[in-house]
């Protein structure tokens, strides 16, 4: 994309935004806004604003050409869309994305696991390169615990004088060439003996595979989180299945898990891949059950430790019921806080889920029903009697009950409408979506279709009424500028500053879908500074075509914050 086209995309956004604001003023109540249709010419842009991470140059014309309705239908069937080969190539080196938890533990171990490997309690990785890396980490840990300070030979002891000179004074590309030519074992030794500045230089200039080696030399388990966040950003920017990516973000956030809570570091990858992504356009009950049985969720909300008081395990040990998952399941995942349940229901639900635990939490980490932890007495949940002796079926029964409850239908429909339509969506729309949810067995694609076909979605009240989240703002800026994203550590730093660290919302509530959440001074300032940095090519790992300074103003403008 040429530099000249960039402002054109952004200017279109600016003008459309201003014209809306002027009209909105002259109109009446909020309810009336949702009855008044938007102009036909505004529809492609609106569809792109809501179903994607922002329009790329030419997108509006493409949607127009295909027809908005047809384009939305295609986005609702991502299996019919050919994926962008650029994305597939960029995802290819991120090998943790396809690994099981056990494979990740083995190939990218934490310091504690490296020690276990050294002690013979866990097998070393099979891949020779990863094996070497683990050996280095083990040696460093051993040196640390002996003397307190790891033994550090100087670079002069490792390399020839001219090699040292190149590494210290040559341009970055030559440094990388020299570094790449060293034997892998020597590379690790060199990495352990250089400062942060040189390390970052090598990292930025290295090809992807070498970059992974550089990163892994300083604690390989960090690559697990890095792959996750990198993949999320790359998919948002490059995927052709944009609605699927928006939905994956929406549902991960709905069933939020904090990546940095202990063992979850190694379990979130499988959670998102196996529990969330396959179900985003399927039945809600399948999605709910997949999250309920995922080790990541069982760990995050403590259910794996929850023990029935009268169970064999509960009588033997001093452990008891943990209501954490039961409470969040009702309040955040299904019924909603006003969904008509009591504290008694929370306790009864928690009793039903006792025994839903994790086999080998720091190893293979698989779901397991442990009958010795299960409270096998009778229960009553939301007025429904659950007879004694149900075992694992107590939990299944609760999930089925919740997934078909009218409160859940309304709560989920309303949350989707807040994300896709407006911060305060009209009840008329929520009611129709909830009706679809109940009549179609929680078919999420059908619920979305009801929403996208509704006059409210295409109304003046919806059009450009929402503020982008930081993640949406960053992704849409990268798409508008046709940025080349090579690696994402710089973007992650930006997202931390902006207040939406990926996979790192500690609370089970997830990030807010409401515009209000993102209206604060630090956030706005960070958006403006991100815009300036991006346009000036100051975000590590990201390149944009030399552009006009006014592009920074456009990206940080009030109108670009809206969608």
């Amino acid at each position, binding site marked *: 994309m040429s530099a000249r086209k960039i402002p054109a995309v952004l200017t279109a956004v600016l003008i459309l935004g201003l014209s809306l604001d002027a009209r909105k003023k002259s109109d009446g109540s909020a309810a009336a806004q949702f009855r008044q249709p938007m102009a036909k010419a505004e529809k492609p842009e609106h569809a792109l604003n809501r179903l994607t991470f922002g329009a790329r140059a030419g997108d509006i014309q493409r949607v127009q050409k295909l027809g908005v309705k047809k384009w939305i239908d295609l986005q609702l069937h991502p299996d019919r869309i050919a994926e962008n080969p650029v994305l597939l190539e960029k995802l290819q080196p991120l090998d943790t994305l396809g690994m099981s938890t056990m494979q990740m533990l083995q190939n990218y171990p934490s310091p504690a696991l490296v020690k276990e490997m050294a002690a013979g309690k866990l097998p070393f990785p099979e891949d020779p390169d990863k094996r070497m890396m683990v050996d280095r980490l083990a040696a460093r840990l051993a040196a640390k615990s002996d003397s307190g300070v790891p033994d550090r030979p100087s670079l002069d002891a490792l390399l020839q004088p001219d090699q040292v000179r190149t590494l210290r004074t040559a341009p970055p590309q030559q440094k990388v060439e020299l570094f790449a030519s060293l034997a892998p074992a020597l590379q690790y030794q060199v990495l352990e003996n250089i400062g942060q500045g040189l390390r970052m230089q090598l990292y930025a200039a290295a090809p992807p595979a070498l970059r992974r080696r550089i990163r892994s030399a300083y604690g390989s388990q960090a690559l697990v989180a890095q792959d996750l966040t990198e993949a999320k950003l790359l998919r948002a920017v490059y995927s052709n299945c944009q609605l699927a990516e928006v939905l994956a973000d929406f549902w991960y956030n709905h069933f939020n898990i904090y990546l940095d*809570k202990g063992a979850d570091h190694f379990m979130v990858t499988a959670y998102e891949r196996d529990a969330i992504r396959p179900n985003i356009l399927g039945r809600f009950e399948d999605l709910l059950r997949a999250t309920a049985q995922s080790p990541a969720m069982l760990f995050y909300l403590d259910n794996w430790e929850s023990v029935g008081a009268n169970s064999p395990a509960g009588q033997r040990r001093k452990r008891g019921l943990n209501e954490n998952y039961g409470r969040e399941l009702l309040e955040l995942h299904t019924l909603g806080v006003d969904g008509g349940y009591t504290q008694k229901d929370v306790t009864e639900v928690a009793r039903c889920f006792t025994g839903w635990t994790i086999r080998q939490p720091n190893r293979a980490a698989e779901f397991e029903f442990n009958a010795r932890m299960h409270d096998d007495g009778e229960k009553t949940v939301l007025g429904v009697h659950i007879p004694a002796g149900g075992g694992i079926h107590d939990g299944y029964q609760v999930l089925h009950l919740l997934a078909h409850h009218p409160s859940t239908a309304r709560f989920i429909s309303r949350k989707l409408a807040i994300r896709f339509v407006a911060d305060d969506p009209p009840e008329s729309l929520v009611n129709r979506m909830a009706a679809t949810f109940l009549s179609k067995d929680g078919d999420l694609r059908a619920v979305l279709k009801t929403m996208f076909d509704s006059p409210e979605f295409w109304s003046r009240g919806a059009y450009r009424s929402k503020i982008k989240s930081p993640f949406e703002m960053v992704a849409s800026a990268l798409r508008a500028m046709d940025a080349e994203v090579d690696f994402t550590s710089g973007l992650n730093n930006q997202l931390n500053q902006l207040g939406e660290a990926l996979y790192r919302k500690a609370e089970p509530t997830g990030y807010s879908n409401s515009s209000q959440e993102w209206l604060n001074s630090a956030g706005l300032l960070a958006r403006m500074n991100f815009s300036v940095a991006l346009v000036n090519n100051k975000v590590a790992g990201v390149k944009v075509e030399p552009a006009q300074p006014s592009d920074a103003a456009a990206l940080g403008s009030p109108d670009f914050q*809206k969608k």
Partner: protein
Amino acid sequence: MHTRRFFLRNSALAMVGAGAAPLWLERALYAADAPSPRKKILVAIFQRGAADGLNIVVPHGEKSYYEMRPTIAVPRPSAAETANAAIDLDGFFGLHPALAPLKPVWDDGHLAIVHAAGSPDPTRSHFDAQDFMEAGTPGLKATTDGWMNRALSPAKPADHGSPVRAIALDSTLPRVLRGANSAVAIQNLRDFQVRNAGALGAFQSLYADTHDTALHALGTETFEAMALLQSIQKQHYEPAAGARYPGGRFGDCLRQIAQLIKAEVGVEMAFADVGGWDHHVNEVGALASEGQLAARLTEFGQALAAFWADLDDRCDDVSLVTMSEFGRTARENGGRGTDHGHANCMFVMGGGVRGGRVYGKWPGLAPEQLYESRDLALTTDFRDVLAELVKGQSGNEDLTKVFPHYSPKPIGLLS
């Protein structure tokens, strides 16, 4: 002093634009000329990672303490080598030797300690416990805002309050300050600006011209805060005589908080955190005055003492409180460290504080007195401490919104 404020006023007004000075700025800037009741300020410090309260405020009168910590206990004040011994406070408790800079504040009656305090929730997860303590609702995960935000009185619409009335020295707004009232996270006062003069002008006019009322207001607030902070930066900040901040992030944070307080720009709540307390292994060096914990406490004590000295004549308006998500095990573990425990100690410092006393019922450290047979038991809910300080700061007697579902018990920390 007068010259500095005069300068501040002119430069700040120039940046906001003459004639457009918002109420808060007028009030803040003219406060020096027409004295009005000065704002009370509450500063909260979070020691993230679960600090070892038993080695920070040492119960040297407890025989069990020395039995349970054979290699990591801080020696009694009577020990021969005083530089390595606890600094006696009241015959039973003593400060870790690295906290010597705080002893004069204690002696002057401006530093109080509450021991065996903390969150009643039994969790030993850093993540959950910090979350509960910042939300101010132990055990309730669905709380979305933090106690410090709820403690702010809602600003009147006509005068949206100082843009820095609630501030965290942090890159993102911590949980404790999130909520309905506006609060800013600023990593460094100097960095709170658009890093490109040309872009700044463009942004200012775009946000001034937008028809979107919410973004217009936010733009105004942000550019005001930026102008305010930059005007403060125009002059080199010189801490008061005797205030020597240690190097490192925590000292920097406290210095900047003091700078904001003394600039009288409307700060009501300030928050900073300090990490590195999770000492499972080698908590103590060869001597109690050496090693990881001693290093953290040296920085901690120096920073707090410098902050106190720096406040100078503003100290009567300021209360500072420290907290950590939970304490550590009463017994040392096999690696000369301690594991996750329960109750902890809190420091309270301020002009109105009845200091020089250790508050709270001491539960004892005999095996049968321990919580779950392993940790210091809890006798004071952290909300009791915070509630008194919030009352003192805001004058508001009704704290049901700040600490819902809880009736704080009076301690008598403030005079």
